[in-house]
């Protein structure tokens, strides 16, 4: 009898129904979706337009104060950059020779057009227009969208290193899901196959981020792997998911994995996840169908 009384309470009934519907909605939207519906796109583009107006000027004003604060720092940085630039010019000459030779070899070996262009990435600059600070669902909104050819799954980098992956696209804006939200159990995130910048014998998979220590975890490293502390880790790009050579971070330390067969490494991300301004979306060459 008590149960019927409980069901007779209309308010409780409505709350329960609403709860079930919300859980269903979350479950439905959690998995991968082909594209967003029209109302969602419209809402995102409208809000994105307003955000665009506010974010940039606010950034300029905030940046002005910060720049005055580290005038001395900038002087030192300039010095460092000059040295780095000199080194780049030296290496550029060498690079040109190697690139030319590489092209000739490709011709000789009859590479197809697709194979030749496989690593011919283009980088499109994007302006961040809004930041979601939620610790689990960390996302950014950028001002490139479907109109500019952005697609779900493309990698996004800052000048320092890899930042995240495009998670949803509307006409004029798209959402970037940061790699700090990476999780092995998340159905939407894929592990990144990585190697070391200077020693390509290293292999591992970066698939989760530890929030308590602010580091990425690299797993599946073989016992005889030459990986060591301080190595720069870059993406390997042997699948279609991630391009080659995106900088992930530096190895902090290497330890035995829980099960003993392999090693794991903790990696300090190279990109800074704060003060967002410009980012780059990495466009990979179109694969013929």
């Amino acid at each position, binding site marked *: 009898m008590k149960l019927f009384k409980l069901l007779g309470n209309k308010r409780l009934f409505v709350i329960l129904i609403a*709860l079930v519907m*919300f859980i269903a*909605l*979350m*479950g439905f*939207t*959690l998995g991968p979706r082909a594209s*967003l519906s029209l109302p*969602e796109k419209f*809402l*995102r583009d409208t*809000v*994105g337009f*307003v*955000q665009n107006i*506010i*974010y940039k000027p*606010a*950034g300029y*004003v*905030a940046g002005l104060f910060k720049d005055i604060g580290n005038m001395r720092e900038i002087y030192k940085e300039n010095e460092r950059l000059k040295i780095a630039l000199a080194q780049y010019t030296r290496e550029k000459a060498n690079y040109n020779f190697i690139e030319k030779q590489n092209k000739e070899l490709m011709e000789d070996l009859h590479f197809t057009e697709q194979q030749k262009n496989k690593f011919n990435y283009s980088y499109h600059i994007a302006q961040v*227009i*809004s*930041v*979601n*600070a*939620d*610790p*689990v*669902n*960390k*996302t950014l*909104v950028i001002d490139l969208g479907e109109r500019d050819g952005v697609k779900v799954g493309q990698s996004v980098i800052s000048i320092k290193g890899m930042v995240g992956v495009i*998670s*949803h696209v509307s006409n004029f804006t798209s*959402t970037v*899901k940061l790699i*700090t*939200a990476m*999780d092995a*159990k*998340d159905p*939407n995130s894929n592990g990144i196959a990585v190697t070391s910048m200077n020693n390509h014998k290293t292999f591992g998979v970066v698939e989760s981020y530890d*929030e*308590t220590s*602010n580091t990425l975890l690299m797993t599946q490293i073989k016992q005889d792997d030459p990986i060591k502390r301080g190595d720069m880790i870059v993406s390997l790009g042997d699948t279609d998911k991630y391009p080659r050579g995106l900088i992930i971070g530096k190895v902090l330390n290497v330890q035995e994995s829980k099960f003993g067969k392999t090693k794991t490494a903790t990696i300090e991300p190279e990109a*800074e*996840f*704060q*003060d*967002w301004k410009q980012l780059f979306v990495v466009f990979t060459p179109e694969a013929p169908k």
Partner: protein
Amino acid sequence: MNVRKQVLLLLLFLLFILEGALIPWILPGSWQSILAPNLVFIVLLFVSIYHNRHTALVLGIIFGMLHDVVFYGDMIGTYSLVMGFSTYIMGFIFRVRRAPMPVMMTVVILGSLLFDSMLYAIYRLFSLTQVTYDWNLLHHILPDLVLHFVFGLIIYVPLRKQLEKIARREKKEKAA
């Protein structure tokens, strides 16, 4: 229609925009990964106490949905559910006529705790986060609570005045 109401709604939308576009610039770099202020939610708590908890429920669902769609990372519906539910519950528990300041601040504190805890519970339910509740409490919920409390103190006087004016106007219209 009441012009004041529409202006307040517009300001609420502006606050939502500022939350994503201006707050990250004001906070120092190291705080940006800790604090996730939800200022719209605090305003809605005021609406729930001083105006009407059903209005707050509807506004909570609408603005939560806005947040979900604009910052769509994993799933839609978390903020909508949490904002609607916690504003309504807070208004339901504290049914005080002309609530004084200490009561309102208690609502802000409890509401903020409820909001962040529910958010954590949902993420945990869908196993999107692996951190423990204790860690989350220390590193996200309590810092957020302090910020929400300060924001609540700042908007207390002007917002309460406006909301009571709206309530008085509605009463008059009903009587007429």
